[in-house]
């Protein structure tokens, strides 16, 4: 639903920011079956040395994700739109270079221990 369809046509400004990033993904706009959300945590398994052997966009992600980051943070650091970052991350996940966890959907009544921990954490800041 969030992704442009193939038969969409872009002109002028509408084409500008979108067209170039999608060349990075080879025109792909879907992350396959991998359900990445804005706040899914991702972390790279290869270290910095291995990253040097990868294609530049993947190498940047692997270098960034030496500690757990959300998809939103990866996108912000790479200065790329979220949907494109999802495609790149999905590639890395399929190759076993990145592991991820979808943020668990919170129920209508969130766990009181989690809420208390958030409150305590804010007070400690």
């Amino acid at each position, binding site marked *: 639903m969030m992704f442009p369809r193939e038969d969409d046509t872009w002109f002028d400004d509408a084409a500008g920011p979108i067209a170039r990033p999608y060349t990075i993904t080879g025109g792909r706009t879907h992350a396959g079956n991998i359900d990445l959300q804005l706040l899914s945590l991702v972390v790279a398994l290869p270290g910095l040395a291995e990253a040097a052997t990868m294609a530049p966009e993947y190498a940047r992600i692997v270098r960034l994700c030496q*500690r*757990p980051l959300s998809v939103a943070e990866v996108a912000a650091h790479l200065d790329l739109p979220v949907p494109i970052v999802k495609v790149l991350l999905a590639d890395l996940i399929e190759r076993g270079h990145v592991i991820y966890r979808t943020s668990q959907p919170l129920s209508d009544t969130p766990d009181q221990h989690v809420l208390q921990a958030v409150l305590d954490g804010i007070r400690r800041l």
Partner: protein
Amino acid sequence: MAFAGSEPRRNVSATVVKLLIAGGFGVGKTTMVGSVSEISPLRTEESITQASAGVDDLTGVESKTTTTVALDFGRITINPELILYLFGTPGQDRFWFMWDELAQGALGAVVLADTRRLESCFPAVDFFERRGLPFVVGVNCFDNAYRYGTEEVRAALELDDTVPILLCDARDRESTKQVLAILMQHVMANAALARR
């Protein structure tokens, strides 16, 4: 998670929670995020290609057709197993459909109000009321802004008596901490009621 027991640094098992900071354009949402975030507020762009059709005829700050919406956010690592993200909601009304996705899984929200243009936070108040998401109202005290009392703001916004409302300074870390702490207490009270 299969990898959870391995190297802690590469652990993705942490619980992720989010709070929203909403309010009109230019009210200080990103400033508030930045006052407590451990990272400088980051900006990311989410695609709204299809949903944007037909809503751009509203009179807005920008007249140009856009296919993405910018989100500003910050992060507070409470402990290695619990990460809090603060998301600033897009300022323009025409992005209301993004809020639905943003609001999913959010614990609660701060509606930042500017007394010089109180009406700019009506859409946020309406949205959270309809969605049943707990929220508090922070009246951002800008320099030289005309000061109203919190009860005057409550009456103007037609807020329920149960909705906490307080004066704040979005630039000030202690002030933002206070707003967020009151929000969390409100969220916990709501959760306790729902559990009965």
